[in-house]
């Protein structure tokens, strides 16, 4: 069985700095896969390469067997990869429902069908009761959920979540974790997330990749990775031992 997303020796350089250095990994279909690492490890650059916001200098990114490196972000999304942004960017002046309808219209041409699809996603993310609110008036946890809802409404095969737990309180984190687990379990949606919040990573991910200075230094189950001496040294520090 070939993996849904396949990176083979992918590199990205900014002038002298190698942000992502020959990173290879595979994300099988249906899993929740986490990329962790200290600040500046190249996680967001890696995401931008996959999502089409940046073009890799070297290496191959393949999605469902098809090379996607260098495609425009909208083309990548149409192929079935939806993303959220680390700094959330919902459409501020639009209502919550209209935000999600924009996503739902990607594969639907009928507005009524898109609204139904959007409402189903909003129920899933506990935002249905707030659907007429203007997005700019939402709290940060709700804006994060809205960001996920808009991405989900495009009906992706792979969902990229860029630090979707950052800035959330522990109870909010647990709520988001529960929602994402349920979506993964029920629809089999593959999720690739960048995360700093280890509590969420441990609860969610079946597989973890650790980046440090653009290099993949470890990979495996969360339990194995947190015991890896290289990971402890570069990232987690002594307090988790």
């Amino acid at each position, binding site marked *: 069985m070939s993996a849904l997303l396949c990176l083979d020796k992918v590199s990205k350089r900014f002038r002298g700095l190698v942000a992502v250095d020959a990173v290879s990994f595979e994300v099988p279909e249906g899993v929740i896969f986490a990329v962790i690492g200290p600040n500046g490890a190249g996680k967001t650059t890696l995401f931008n390469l996959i*999502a089409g*916001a940046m073009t890799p200098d070297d290496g191959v990114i393949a999605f469902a067997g098809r090379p996607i490196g260098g495609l*425009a*972000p*909208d*083309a990548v*999304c*149409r192929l079935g990869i*939806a*993303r959220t*942004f680390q700094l959330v*960017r*919902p*459409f*501020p*002046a*639009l*209502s919550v429902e*209209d935000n999600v*309808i*924009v*996503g739902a*219209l*990607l594969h639907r*041409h009928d*507005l009524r069908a*898109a609204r139904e699809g959007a409402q189903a996603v909003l129920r899933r993310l506990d935002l249905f009761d707030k659907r007429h609110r203007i997005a700019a008036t939402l709290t940060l946890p709700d804006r994060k959920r809205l960001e996920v809802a*808009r*991405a989900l409404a*495009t009906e992706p095969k792979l969902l990229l979540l860029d630090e979707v737990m950052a800035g959330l309180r522990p109870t909010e984190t647990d709520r988001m974790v529960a929602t994402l687990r349920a979506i993964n379990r029920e629809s089999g949606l593959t999720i690739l997330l960048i995360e700093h919040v280890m509590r969420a990573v441990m609860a969610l991910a079946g597989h973890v990749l650790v980046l440090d200075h653009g290099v993949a230094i470890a990979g495996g189950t969360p339990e194995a990775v947190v015991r890896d001496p290289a990971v402890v040294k570069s990232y987690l520090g002594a307090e988790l031992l």
Partner: protein
Amino acid sequence: MMAQFADGVSRRSLAFLAVLLAALVVAPWLVSDYLLTVLIVIFYLAYTGQAWNIMMGFAGQLSLGNAIYAGLGAYVAAMLFTRYGVAPWLGLLAAIPVAAACGAVIGFLAFRFGVAGVYFAILTIAFAEFARIGFDHLDFVNASAGLFLPVAQYTHNDLWRLRGSPTMFYYVMLAATIVAFLLSRLLLKSRMGYFWLAIREDEPAARAAGIDTFRYKMYAVMISAGFTSFAGVFYAFFYNNLFPEQVFNISRSIEMILGPIIGGIGTLFGPILGAFVLTGLAESVTSALSAFGIDLPGAKQVFYGICLLLIVVALPEGIWPWLARRLGVAERDR
């Protein structure tokens, strides 16, 4: 079709629109010739404001050179009429693609090469100025000497050739404003309308949601340009003369955008309300100043400017969003 237009509109809004429409239909019998001309100017600005609103209010692309599309429409239809006797409605069929093609060139240059925001606005001004100076030296269109249409005989109205009385022109412009209003609404509630709003709100986020932003921005510019070209055709046949210095002048472009700004950018009714307020204000200032016997050069402009300033400071979103809340007819789903 009518059900689709009325979808999501409250009874109160429909009643309000019906009363307004009835008043406008009977207006020519009730008002003086002078007021009728003022109303024609109002609807001209309401129409061009709506066309500009599609580009700026919906898709978020700031054009400060929409006069180029009106000017091209005016020249295409006037040339076809004076040289070949082609009726303006047929001329319109040529004017729309010419204006849309011009919009496509400007849009392509801007959107392909990442010219956005104020730089896009400057590009639109540059094209309009280029047209103004170019037409001024183009002998084919009579250069700076201008084009003149045979002056209308008011004995009978010829709607097909747009020769006739102000009342006929009034109804033509009223109908155009209504058509623009209905089409704006249809566009705003369409798939493309949602994509435009997404682009206006946050273009990178729109791209991440799978929207081909280049394509939809191109559609916005071309539709806005095509719409605006009809205003030019009307202008040519209403005023019967065309000078590049006038039709392509930047003040024409600014006139077109003031209505939506005062009325409410991105709203459906804002451009129409804005045109009424602006023109009404300008005419009231003129008659008030003459009634008080004030005859200072520039006094009208200064007073008009102060009024606009007060409106913009008090209601930065425009008059319509505020008024709609007051009347309880706020546009839903916005």
